[in-house]
């Protein structure tokens, strides 16, 4: 039987609160026209003020809800009185109003009277059971209804929990799932209709358990957050920082709601505690980051800025103390177990909270979701944990975990006992990653159709070639994947060597190369420590050869007889941006932050970044003609170290070409890049050697005048002028530049090299680099 999918061409979101508005924004990001409706406030002049106000707020707010300001035009504000009829034209209606079942139910009845028959309706509820929401609604409505629960902020948090009722049609679920996966880039987790679904069920338990444990011990909130964050693979906000981020005022409501909905035997009840401190904070307006502070606050009294933390015992604020716990040092030497087995208050706190939470998660299969994979995905995608509960238990060792629980006389669930018997929740067999199901059998972890991950390829094969900094993988159909795997994926001479070796191999045996990896960022740039060493030893010939090698390697990539597709994601900065610019095509993840940021360390792009930007701007058909607009654009991008806020923004800036592709789902990036490479490999033509007409010294004059104006206006420093003069000379084509004489890529690369090495010999550059290495921030010298 073929399933009839509704094509989602138009969406409506009802409720323009933080979640509703941002969900609408993300639909617009995906290119879908979206109607955003809310109530008409009393005596409102503009009857759409709630929705239009929410859109305006998002355009100003941070982190940005829209991938591009132009996306905001796809959200049409409206109101529930004048525009309700417009719901008859939409394919998906998303309800994101107040968490009140009666109000929601009334709205659904109204929606049911206008929606078209094929329209899907979903709720973004986080607490109300689906069964309660659809009480009294028509059968045809119940067939089209599901819970689709987004996480805050919806553009950035990957999790989408989907919950269906007994009447929901399978094609309704698969329509939303496909759309969410491909178009919105979401990681979908199927949940059962249980309170808090999956992620919040565990997340709220973890927070409540952490709060109760902290109250019951001597641990400070700084210590609790230091322990319950990076060391256990949880974001650095930690536990109390997360309370502040979410809004402390929500917690008593969530706690009461969970307590009323969960069965009496649920372990959540045993974690509940006195919330008087939280209630006191709320009463005083300390509702978290949205209020005047929370467990942490920024004290601005006396003209200063002091970060303060609440003392859980006295209830007073005091300046944040640097955390010094032996257990945190144990993490570095002995890993997670070192922390959890440490006897100090940090170790005890970590064990108590994590063991409670992980054991609780283990008790929820298959009550909240079918398997551990779903639960781990929910926590990694929805709470940004590096590893989900079951992967964490494997890290600790399930046998050790269970025996420690038993030694403490605590109950151990059947599933945990089962896992301890077989040794782990996950294993790899014959190159397949497997998980333990509730019956005690291992099953292969399924991948969505079309998903291609290097992680999976690595389990099944060895690299074609490899050194300690990079590897080349066969990803099938004649396509290879070049992976950098240094610390923060910095580019070094090993990487260049392997690129050159790879080119030779691919010429013989393969069709194309994709440059891609699965670290948290694509690449943060060239290995800056190597430059420091050269500067300190005044090894200028070596510096020149290092530059020249990078340049010739990237040129070889560009001009090889096979196509090279770069697939950036996260940060691709400096040299990491340059390698992307030298690929023949780019398939970028939507969350790609590209930038030529060398001026921050007193340098200019030296591996072809200047040349590549000039080439891109010289073929741009939109900007005015003549040599100056080209160099002005390149100067602006590089001198201001512009970093794109998304792949769409990168297209605007010019890092991506108009025909470069953008992928929303991170897990589909490699597959999309591979498809692009195969497409290009058909009748591939090597790009012609670029020739660019530049103005020469007259252009340098105009750019130098610009930077001096900036200096006069207090927007540029003394050393900015030095760096920008070097940049101006490169971008204007040096002394050889003239409107009658085009320059070749090689001419321009030679200029880049000359000025790069020239700047290296300047104390101002060394000062900038050292400051950056020490503080992570640019020096304004």
């Amino acid at each position, binding site marked *: 039987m073929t399933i009839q999918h509704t094509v989602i061409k138009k969406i409506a979101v009802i409720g323009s609160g933080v979640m509703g508005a941002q969900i609408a924004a993300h639909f617009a990001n995906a290119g879908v026209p979206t109607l955003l409706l809310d109530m008409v406030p009393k005596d409102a002049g503009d009857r759409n003020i709630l929705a239009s106000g929410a859109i305006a707020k998002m355009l100003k707010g941070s982190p940005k809800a829209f991938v591009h300001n132009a996306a905001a035009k796809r959200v049409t504000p409206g109101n529930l009185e004048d525009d309700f009829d417009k719901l008859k034209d939409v394919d998906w209606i998303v309800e994101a109003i107040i968490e009140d079942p009666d109000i929601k139910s009334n709205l659904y009845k109204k929606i049911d009277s206008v929606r078209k028959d094929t329209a899907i309706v979903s709720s973004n509820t986080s607490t109300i059971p689906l069964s309660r929401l659809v009480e009294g609604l028509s059968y045809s409505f119940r067939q089209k209804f599901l819970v689709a629960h987004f996480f805050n902020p919806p553009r950035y948090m990957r999790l989408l929990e989907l919950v269906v009722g007994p009447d929901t049609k399978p094609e309704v679920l698969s329509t939303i799932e496909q759309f969410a996966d491909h178009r919105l880039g979401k990681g979908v987790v199927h949940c059962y209709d249980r309170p808090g679904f999956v992620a919040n069920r565990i997340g709220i338990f973890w927070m409540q358990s952490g709060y109760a444990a902290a109250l019951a011990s001597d641990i400070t909130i700084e210590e609790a957050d230091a322990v319950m964050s990076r060391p256990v693979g949880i974001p650095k906000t930690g536990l109390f920082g997360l309370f502040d981020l979410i809004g402390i005022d929500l917690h008593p409501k969530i706690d009461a709601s969970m307590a009323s909905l969960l069965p009496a035997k649920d372990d959540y009840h045993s974690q509940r505690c006195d919330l008087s401190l939280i209630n006191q904070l709320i009463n005083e307006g300390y509702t978290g980051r949205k209020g005047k502070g929370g467990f942490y606050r920024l004290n601005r009294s006396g003209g200063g800025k002091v970060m303060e933390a609440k003392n859980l015992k006295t209830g007073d604020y005091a300046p944040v103390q640097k955390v010094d716990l032996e257990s945190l040092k144990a993490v570095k030497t002995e890993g997670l177990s070192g922390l959890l087995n440490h006897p100090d208050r940090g170790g005890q706190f970590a064990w108590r909270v994590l063991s409670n939470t992980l054991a609780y998660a283990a008790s929820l299969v298959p009550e909240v979701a079918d398997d551990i994979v779903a639960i781990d995905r929910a926590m990694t995608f929805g709470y940004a944990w590096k590893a989900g509960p079951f992967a964490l238990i494997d890290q600790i060792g399930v046998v050790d975990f269970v025996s420690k629980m038993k030694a403490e006389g605590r109950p151990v669930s059947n599933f945990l006992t089962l896992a301890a018997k077989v040794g782990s929740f996950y294993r790899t067999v014959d190159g397949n990653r497997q998980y333990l199901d509730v019956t005690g059998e291992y099953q292969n972890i399924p991948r969505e159709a079309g998903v291609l991950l290097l992680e999976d390829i690595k389990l099944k094969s060895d690299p074609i070639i490899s050194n300690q900094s990079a590897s080349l993988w066969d990803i099938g159909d004649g396509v290879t994947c070049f992976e950098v795997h240094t610390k923060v994926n910095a580019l070094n001479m090993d990487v260049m060597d392997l690129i050159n070796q790879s080119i030779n191999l691919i010429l013989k045996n393969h069709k194309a190369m994709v440059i891609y990896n699965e670290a948290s960022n694509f690449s943060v740039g060239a290995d800056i420590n190597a430059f420091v060493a050269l500067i300190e030893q005044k090894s200028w010939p070596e510096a020149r050869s290092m530059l020249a090698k990078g340049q010739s390697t990237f040129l070889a990539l560009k001009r090889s007889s096979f196509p090279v597709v770069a697939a950036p994601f996260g940060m691709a900065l400096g040299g990491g941006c340059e390698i992307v610019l030298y690929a023949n095509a780019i398939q970028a993840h939507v969350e790609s932050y590209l930038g030529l940021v060398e001026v921050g360390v007193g340098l200019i792009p030296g591996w072809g970044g200047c040349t590549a930007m000039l080439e891109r701007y010289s073929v741009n058909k939109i900007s005015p003609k003549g040599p*100056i607009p080209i160099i002005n654009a390149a100067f602006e991008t590089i001198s201001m170290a512009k970093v794109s806020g998304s792949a769409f923004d990168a297209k605007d800036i010019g890092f991506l070409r108009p025909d470069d592709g953008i992928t929303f789902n991170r897990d589909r990036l490699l597959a999309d890049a591979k498809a692009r490479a195969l497409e290009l490999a058909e009748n591939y033509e090597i790009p012609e050697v670029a020739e660019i007409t530049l103005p020469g010294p*007259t252009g340098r004059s*105009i750019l130098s005048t610009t930077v001096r104006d900036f200096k006069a206006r207090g927007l540029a420093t003394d050393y900015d002028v030095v760096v920008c003069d070097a940049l101006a000379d490169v971008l204007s084509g040096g002394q050889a530049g003239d409107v009658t004489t085009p320059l070749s890529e090689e001419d321009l690369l030679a200029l880049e090299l000359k000025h790069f090495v020239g700047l290296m010999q300047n104390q101002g550059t060394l000062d900038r680099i050292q400051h950056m290495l020490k503080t992570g921030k640019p020096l304004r010298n």
Partner: protein
Amino acid sequence: MQKNVVIAGYVRSPFHFAKKGSLARVRPDEIAAQVVRGLVEKIGINTADIEDLILGCAFPEGEQGLNMARIVTFLAKLPISVAGTTVNRFCGSSMQSIHMAAGAIQMNAGDAFICAGVESMSRMPMGGYNPMPHPGLAADYEQAYMSMGVTAENLADKYNISRQRQEELTVISHQRANDARHSGRLTDEIIPIVHGDIIIGSDGCIREGTTAAALADLKPVFRVDGSVTAATSSPLTDGASATLVTSEEYAKATGLPILARIKSIAVAGCAPEIMGIGPVNATIKALSRAGLSLADIDIIELNEAFAAQALSCVDELGVDMEKTNIDGGALALGHPLGATGARITGKAAALLQREGKQFALSAQCIGGGQGIATILEAV
């Protein structure tokens, strides 16, 4: 026998902020053409008698290029026999166009000229799309290409023009322009611009209720320790202006309404880093050629490119502010570079008539270090 030259008509478009104002989407050749058409219809001149359209423009490229004056003759539906030339003396461009017509008339090279000016600062970046300075000069004599804001700061330093005085002048300029607008004293000179379904009929840059206190909070925009702010600089502006310049005998023979006779003209160079002082020497030369002293002048239109710049000239020349820019100046009205010269000269002529006075002066500064001045007398 030398002919007398008169100004027999003056109109302009409304002036609006560049980029965000109502004229931003209107092409400059279109604005200029509607203003020129408005002028000939208002005056009722026999267009076949017009010798030339002399159009001032500071950055004549792109939409302002291709000898825009000739294009404007077509757009304004002037007879094919009317010629067109585009003139560039930066901010002095359209006062220069009046001077060129005066010279031509006295040379017996025509009896009637349209002397106009236009600038779309929305659609043409300051400096044009491809500013390409002479690199040797830029290195040895950078003030040749100095940004205008910096020259204003230099004047504020050199002539001790305090920030407070600059702000006081700004407030006065807005007050006078606002009063003039509300009492209808600007209505006659404005030709509404039609853009699609929209008619743009009034000025857009004048701020009602500007106070010194509100201006005091602004940050300097050209030098971090400077005194010149966005408020004490004339805004980037879109607009056009046009005057009808004829021989006195032609005007009288055809019954044109004469506003004023051109008594003398002058241009003068000055140091480019203090280009805003340019009107001083130009004015002294023009006064001398007219056989007058500044005390004889009843009406002064002194362009306010920057408050610091205008006040430097006021101090140097000893200008009486009570007879200067009485309907407001460029700080309030706006300064569409190529259009300003014809605006202030046409305005000075119109004010002579309206106020029943005898002598008027219009003067302005020019980037690169120049001044230009015109002296008018009642007929």
